[in-house]
């Protein structure tokens, strides 16, 4: 069906390149045995994802994606891997049992199901309904601090609890 499209535009080429890279990196996260390499793949994946957000005109969220995921969360992952020294003796060779097979089979089943039921009916949709500046900081800030102010406050509480919890877990003796 994709092949059935008459022409291919530069925009489509950009998207396909980004999407292909992201997909490859996603596979890399799962397939590579060394956790450090998995992590590096994930970094690239998140970084590319940020650019895909940009192609969706969601500038603020793209930048947040780089800052939060690529910048903060992935650094945390790498720190933990370093601290646990997982790259050396802690590389677990995957056992050859039924689980990976079943997992991959179920994964494929999931993919097939959702693709057939959700994606196929949406093939034709190309019309963009959102305003041009729907992802600008002004628009997001306005919505976040009016309609979503309570969830926002609750989220701040959650982060606070997260801080306390991680300190509690990290300390040897309280």
């Amino acid at each position, binding site marked *: 069906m994709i092949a059935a499209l008459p022409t291919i535009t530069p925009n489509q080429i950009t998207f396909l390149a980004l999407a292909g890279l992201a997909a490859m990196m996603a596979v890399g996260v799962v397939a590579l045995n060394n956790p450090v390499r998995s992590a590096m793949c994930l970094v690239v994946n998140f970084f590319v994802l940020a650019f895909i957000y940009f192609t969706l005109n969601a500038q603020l969220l793209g930048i947040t994606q780089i800052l939060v995921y690529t910048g903060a969360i992935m650094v945390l992952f790498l720190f933990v891997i370093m601290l646990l020294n997982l790259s050396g003796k802690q590389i677990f060779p995957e056992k050859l049992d039924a*689980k990976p097979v*079943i*997992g991959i089979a*179920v*994964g494929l*089943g*999931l993919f097939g*199901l*959702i693709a*057939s*039921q959700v994606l196929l009916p949406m093939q034709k949709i190309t019309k963009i309904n959102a305003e041009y500046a729907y992802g600008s900081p002004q628009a997001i800030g306005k919505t976040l601090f009016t309609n979503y102010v309570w969830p926002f406050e609750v989220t701040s509480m959650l982060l606070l609890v997260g801080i306390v919890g991680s300190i509690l877990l990290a300390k040897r003796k309280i």
Partner: protein
Amino acid sequence: MEVGTLIWLVLFLPVLGFLVQAFFGGRVVRSQGVAGKKLMGTLAVLPIAISFVLGCIITAQLAQQPADARFSIHTLFSWIDILSLSIPFEVRVDPLSMTMVLIITGIGSLIHVYATGYMAEEKDYSRFFTYLNLFIAFMLILVLGNNLLLLFIGWEGVGLCSYLLIGFWYKDLANSRAANKAFIVNRIGDWGLTLGMFIIVALIASNIGKLGLDNVRFLSYDVILSAPVIEIFKANPGWTTAAALLLFVGAMGKSAQFPLYLWLPDAMAGPTPVSALIHAATMVTAGVVLLNRMNILFQLSPVASAVVCGVGAFTALFAALIAFGQTDIKKVLAYSTVSQLGFMFIACGAGAYWAGMFHVTTHAFFKALLFLGSGAVIHAMAHDQDMRNYGNLRKYLKITSATMIIGWLAIAGVSVWTFFGFAGFYSKEAILGAAFANEFASIGGINIGFYSACVGMFVALLTSFYMSRMTFMTFFGQEERWRLIPAGAHHDAQGHDDHSHDHGHTHAHHEAHDHGPDTHGFFYTDEELAAQHVGHDHDDHHHALDAEHEPHEVPPSMWVPLVVLAALSVAGGFLLYTNHMFEHWLYPGGQLAILGEIKAYPEWKTLLVALSTGAALGGIVLGWFFYGKKLPEREGWDLRRWSPFRRAAGQQFGYDKAMVDMSVEGGNQLATFSWKFLDSKGIDAIVNGVAGLAGQIGKLFGWAQTGFVRGYALLMLLGGVGLIGYLALVLFQSNGGPK
């Protein structure tokens, strides 16, 4: 000023005094020493005294009103206000409440003055006045409140203050136990009071349709005692009797009637001003006030009234008999209080409610006098309370003995025929006369009121007799027995007064606040006193009672109240009784709402007066005969020589011990039974069984929990896929199958 303003001042001045004492008293006394005590003592007396003056003004205004307009209700704020019940914080100004206000604040301020002298050596000086002012505040709420719930607040509040003050010297275990006993026994009474209130509310609420009431203040007196509600009471005689009896149970607890009297003798562990104020003049009369307030309920229920009469008569007799076996001067007065309260209930049962209140008033005069006098004697005798160690004290304590003799004549009911009598004579006459004359309090045709009056007449003789015993043993005779205490007698005295001390929880032994070796730190040491320049008249109290002891007259702050009370005990009864003044003040025209006129005397009034005068004088003669010269051999320090009757009386005929054993041991056994059988074999079995069942069910399904996290993840994924697949299937079918 308006009555509505004055009455709140009367109520809140003691509260203000309480707050001042509570927040500043301790600091001031600690930092300023004797001067601080003088200041705080003045600040404790002033609010009560001002309240008394204001109370007099209100009463004077009230007396100018026509008899049927003598009440007003003042609401401060809406306290409990829900859909079907409204209880405002309101006070009622009427003759009954104002009478009690005058007694409370009047006697209260005298006793406060007395206490500034009595407690002068106390370290926790302001704590005492904190409690005392708080007590006055709660007592005022009790009598002034216009609904049963405010009465209940006051009821519990005075119970709390009583508890705090009985256990004032709390470091002595016996005092704490006495306080606990008072508190716990009173809870039984409160149980009755609350149930009675519930019945009244339920009765009114279930008949609300017939009433056409425009408000839902179900517990306010003006609603409970209004004509339509009385019709409801008349229509439900069973419930009315139940409510009346339950209210009386409350009165029994607070007013120390048999079988709940046991706490009052032990309450003597508190300081003597407390015994005078709370446990003689005011708090214990709350039951009589309640019966007066709710008198319509009792007028409607002859059965309940008969029970009130019977209980009162039995209590009067029982307590009077016990008083013969007591050697502790305060215990004698305590049992006398119980006995006199019995008289008040005879009056209330017989329908002469005003006579009950009259006796409350006169009793407040002479019993407060006697207690304060005994406090003065104890003060002078190095805090020894054993009458066997007194004798011939009139030589040393001239004012105290003169005033106490007046108190004794007043309680004995001495009179010069009917021309003039001491205070007790008139109230006792009124009670006995009404009880003899009326046939209202009867069950099944038996006129309980009449028999109660017969018992009461006998008790009048006994009262005169044991009070003479106390007076002669203390003030008369040639022996100065504290110089004659035989070696080892001290031990005997202990053995006597702690007659239940093998159980250790019944009696505050009478040397609870012996100043000698004060190990508890409630009093100043000699060095501290010297540092504070306390006058010489206090020094002797720090010596134990020995042969060289010289009693001294008490300071003016203590004897002035005695003199005032003595004057009231002489003239109070005569003034209030003349021209039915007191009766018509409380019950205009002497008419009761249901019963109409209550006869004051039977046809044989002359005989009654003769009998009663004979009882009073006979008791005094008997007392003189037995105790006038010296302590009888058979009542000396050696308990083995006492007669069996007197020994039994000394131990309350075993009643106290039996009750305490029953409740403590019985409670213990009940708790053990409940623990071993009900709890561990019944409830625990059910709980453990349910838990075990859940465990077994868990084990059944436990095999599914492999502990492999990835297995769980896989199952979750499978579930998700299955769910989406199912949804897809349903969607597919609802779209009409394959297209």
